[in-house]
């Protein structure tokens, strides 16, 4: 604490700005020649500054809130124009997803079409082969050189 205890109250009031008049003049005169009191005053100013951090001070005038709200209400266009821009980029997402799904649908439809045609092709191929196999068996079971079709079949089967 201050070496000059008798000035401590005045220093505290000087720091908070409560000291006026003769007393203020007197303490300021003392401070000119007293470094320990100057140091103490600096510290007290630091303590006083802490007060500013508290919101315990007077509440802002009610009109300031009103004014702020009015100012906000006055700018509907300024606030409207940037909002759609931001919204647009968001609304693009479902459209993009829809486009992707549509492309995928077209691709899978074509693919399934292609595959079912391939299946049909393979089925007809296999039934043809089954037919040829049956004929070949018939020819093999029957006496030789019975018909030219058998010879042809045999040739086909061998080939």
């Amino acid at each position, binding site marked *: 604490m201050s070496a000059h205890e008798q000035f*401590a*109250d*005045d*220093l*505290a*009031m000087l*720091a*908070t*700005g*409560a*000291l*006026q*008049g003769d007393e203020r003049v007197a303490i300021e005169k003392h401070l000119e020649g007293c470094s320990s009191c100057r140091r103490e005053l600096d*510290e*007290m100013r630091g*303590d*006083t500054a*802490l*007060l*500013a*951090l*508290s*919101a*315990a*001070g*007077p509440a802002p005038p009610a009109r300031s809130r009103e004014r702020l709200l009015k100012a906000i209400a006055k700018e509907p266009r300024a606030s409207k124009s940037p909002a759609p821009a931001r919204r647009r980029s968001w609304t693009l997402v479902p459209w993009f997803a829809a486009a992707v799904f549509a492309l995928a649908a077209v691709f899978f439809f074509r693919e399934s079409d292609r595959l079912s045609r391939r299946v049909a092709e393979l089925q007809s191929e296999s039934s043809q082969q089954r037919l040829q196999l049956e004929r070949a068996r018939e020819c093999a079971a029957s006496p030789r050189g019975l018909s030219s079709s058998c010879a042809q079949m045999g040739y086909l089967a061998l080939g």
Partner: protein
Amino acid sequence: MEKVRGTLSSMPTAQRSALEMAYFEGLTHTEIAAKTGEPLGTIKTRIRAGLMALRKAFEA
């Protein structure tokens, strides 16, 4: 900020209001004394004690 508020709210009411009148309302010690109807010496002591309480809270 919370700490300042906590310190202020734990202070005696008279001490806190003296501090606030001086700092936020810009009243002089004689004006505060006139407003509260208390002796000047009491106001002086309160302001100083209030500042010391703040300092102590932030030293700890």
